[in-house]
């Protein structure tokens, strides 16, 4: 990744030429217009991405590419603009830390955060603090987004999901999903370098000025509603799987033909784009939870001011939602698969109900293990406490929590990509502990069976037990 020291954009003459490809097509709305837009995207790519000595496009051009994604007339156009935008952000990041690409030897100096202020951003500067400005730019659908249009986008997606009718999804909804994915990528690209600089310097200002923090802090944003919608989208999208399983689209040994009006291209694209949207949603939630932790740290060290405002940590909002809207617990656990945070949420859910007083924050590296998964499993060692837990949580939910918790624990102990960062995870994930956890897992289920003889083991629970038993037999 090469970042030109003077971030000069493409020269005026070329800009005019490239934009001219697009201008001609604005009035028309036909295949020609689509062709011209494609030609425009190709030209931007040819000027900025393909040559090694390429220069970033001007903001006007960047804006035009974004516009193509937002208006999304055809699947071809939205896919092409989505890809180009991501490539551009990767090649010409708006925020980066100054010594991220230098060798370690010269990195004794503290890393510096470089923010290219004049670079293009899909978000409105200040994220809609001034209404008049917002009306000027945000209303004509082409301009950058502010916090309320971000919320609208998510509401829109949630609405599509609630209908849960994937047969009626069209190019437009696919466009919204890709737009959302792009925005999450952009938010991530903004906050990751800030995070790494913040870790070294402990300067909260970097994170305070992150787009994500400003977005969430915006008064126009209904934070809890946003989270609720995000969860609804995640759980709804996971149902795509069942929607596309029932031989509806392409029956295998079929007699029935797919209806002609069912757009094959959209039908083939949907599971793929839906899955990626789900992953993007999970990424967004994790970014917020990480930000919460950094904020808490900064608060404890007194770096925050009153202007930072108060925001309920996301984990708590999610827990409330899972408690009061219990039917999404199972799909949520099914679809949220980042192990560290999944385990965190499961354990907090568990301790919320069980008697053990454990006021825990992530910073208190208490020696007690009751905050870990092993600790939770130990609660099932006596039949009285098992009985108590069953009474409070319910036998099915316990099974879900234990099985999913076990899976997350397993994930952490066979971590395929250590980059995910288990360093700050309190779980003991060494091999010894895994055998121990497998044993305790099995005995917890036995203990529940002793208390409740008619207990039906859920299929997911059975699978967890099978896995635990198989691991035990190979490890011992």
């Amino acid at each position, binding site marked *: 990744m090469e970042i030109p020291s003077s971030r000069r954009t493409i020269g005026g003459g070329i800009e005019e030429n490239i934009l001219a490809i697009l201008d001609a097509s604005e009035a028309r709305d036909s295949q020609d217009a689509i062709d011209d837009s494609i030609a425009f995207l190709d030209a931007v790519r040819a000027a900025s991405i*393909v040559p090694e000595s390429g220069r970033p496009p001007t903001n006007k051009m960047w804006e035009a590419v974004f516009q193509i994604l937002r208006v999304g007339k055809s699947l071809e156009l939205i896919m092409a603009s989505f890809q180009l935008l991501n490539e551009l952000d990767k090649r010409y990041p708006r925020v980066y830390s100054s010594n991220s690409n230098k060798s370690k030897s010269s990195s004794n100096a503290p890393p510096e955060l470089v923010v290219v202020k004049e670079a293009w951003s899909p978000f409105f500067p200040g994220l809609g603090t001034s209404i008049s400005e917002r009306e000027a730019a945000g209303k004509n659908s082409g301009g950058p987004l502010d916090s309320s249009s971000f919320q609208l986008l998510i509401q829109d997606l949630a609405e599509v999901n609630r209908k849960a009718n994937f047969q009626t999804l069209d190019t437009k909804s696919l466009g919204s999903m890709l737009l959302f994915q792009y925005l999450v990528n952009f938010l991530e690209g903004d906050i990751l370098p800030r995070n790494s600089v913040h870790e070294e310097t402990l300067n909260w200002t970097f994170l305070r000025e992150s787009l994500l923090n400003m977005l969430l802090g915006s008064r126009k944003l209904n934070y809890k509603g946003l989270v609720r919608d995000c969860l609804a989208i995640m759980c709804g999208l996971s149902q795509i*799987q069942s929607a596309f399983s029932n031989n509806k689209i392409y029956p295998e040994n079929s007699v029935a*033909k797919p209806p002609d009006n069912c757009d094959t291209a959209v039908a083939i*694209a949907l599971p793929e784009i839906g899955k990626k949207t789900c992953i993007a949603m999970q990424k967004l939630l994790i970014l917020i939870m990480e930000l919460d932790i950094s904020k808490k740290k900064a608060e404890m060290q007194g770096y925050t001011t009153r202007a930072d405002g108060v925001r309920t940590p996301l984990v708590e909002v999610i827990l409330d939602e899972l408690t009061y809207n219990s039917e999404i617990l199972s799909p949520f656990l099914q679809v949220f698969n980042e192990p560290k945070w999944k385990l965190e949420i499961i354990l907090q859910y568990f301790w919320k109900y069980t008697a053990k007083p454990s006021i825990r924050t992530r910073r208190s590296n208490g020696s007690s293990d009751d905050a870990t998964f092993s600790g939770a499993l130990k609660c099932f060692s006596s039949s009285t406490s098992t009985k108590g837990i069953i009474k409070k949580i319910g036998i099915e939910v316990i099974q879900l929590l234990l099985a999913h918790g076990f899976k997350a624990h397993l994930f952490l102990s066979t971590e395929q990509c250590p980059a995910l960062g288990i360093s700050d995870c309190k779980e003991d994930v060494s091999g010894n502990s895994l055998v121990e956890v497998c044993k305790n897992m099995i005995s917890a289920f036995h203990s529940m069976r002793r208390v409740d003889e008619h207990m039906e083991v859920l299929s997911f629970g*059975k699978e967890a037990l099978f896995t635990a038993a198989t691991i035990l037999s190979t490890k011992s």
Partner: protein
Amino acid sequence: MDGALDFEYEDALLSSPVVTKKRKKVIGLDDLLSDFYKEKSKLVEKESKQAKAQKNYNSDEDVNTKEASLTEVIDQCQNQMKEISGDEDMSMWGMRVFGNQKVPPPLDFPELGSCALLQSFMQNELNSLLELTSERGDTFLEGLLANGWLLKLAFTCGHVEKSIAMWAFNLMLYSSKEELRTSAGDFWCTILSSEDELVQIDWLPSYSELKGALEIYGFQFNFSSKREPLLPGSNCGGPPQNIRAWIRFIAASCHVRDKQSIFSTSEAEELVEVIVCLFLDHQLHGLVLLLYECLQSLISYFTDKEWKTSCNEIGKSLACRVPRDLNCLRAVECISGITTRSKQLKSAVAYQFLLVCFHDKATDEEGILQLLISINVKDKSCDLFKMYIYLVLAENWLLVSQMLENKPVINEMWCLYLRNCSCQIASTDLRSFASKVRNKASYLLQGTVNK
């Protein structure tokens, strides 16, 4: 009566496209609410209309015939419009690379019940809680696969036995259940892409199995020749959803070359062609990112020694396979990576297309440019559509390679050709593609001057 009909028909034509076009981009809460109510009232209206129509049907046959003639007229007009727009279809790329699907192999797998994984568990005392039997073994394994346990087990135990590997492979390629094909794909791709040899797998598929799957999906390896007619009632809606897993599998299996190569060089060449052909099908638009990644993996699969010849082989074979219309431009442009190899491949493919376009009348670079320059665009009989194809092919051939910088003769000839196209076609030229050739050439010319 005719007048009334005309009026109504015009109205319908005018109003319908406008409505679809004018969709709001920013949707407010209020809009959502009002839309909801509108939708609702429409439904009510529809129902009452239907009820009325039912009544009319019984009472007044005259209205009924009027309706029939009206629909007939509308149908006619629609057909006419289709024909008119059909003429423009020449200016669109797109191929149906998938024909009739064949019957997939059966998915039941009798050996599965006796696999060691299940058998060893059945002796476990824990089975009293699970009550697992060999007969229901495959359903249970499906659950293990779909929920990701099987993958975890593979990594914890470091081993995947043959029957499980084959079973998962078949599910990935042929299962009609989305969660099974996706999780089976994840299972395979994660194991193949794992960096160090954490998992020992007892069975790897061969190229013929992957190719066979593609044939079952209906992929036509020779679509330039006579196309088989689509059978009515067969699965002709395109490839099955399993194509996604297939593409991902190909990409992942390119990573294991150091350990054990699944494809030979010529098989990898053929796969590159297949992926390029998949780019030509409009039905797979939504998968372009997957296809892009897969193509990148395939390109990096070759060793440096193989690459140069393979590159030309791929170009030659594509040039014979893809028709020389806008499809060949798409074929060239879909090779869009920014690595040196992608650029080399793109240039090689474009070059081979040009050679085929001129029926091998030219044998080298200068020969081709000579032929291009000799075309007289002022000539009324000059096929400007072909000219456009040549122009874009030449652009892709020359601009992504270093040739223009290294060979001044080629550079000069290229500029001369561009000037021919941009200056000799008048802006008033009404022939189709005249303006396209002219604009393209002057845009490219400006680029070379600006350098």
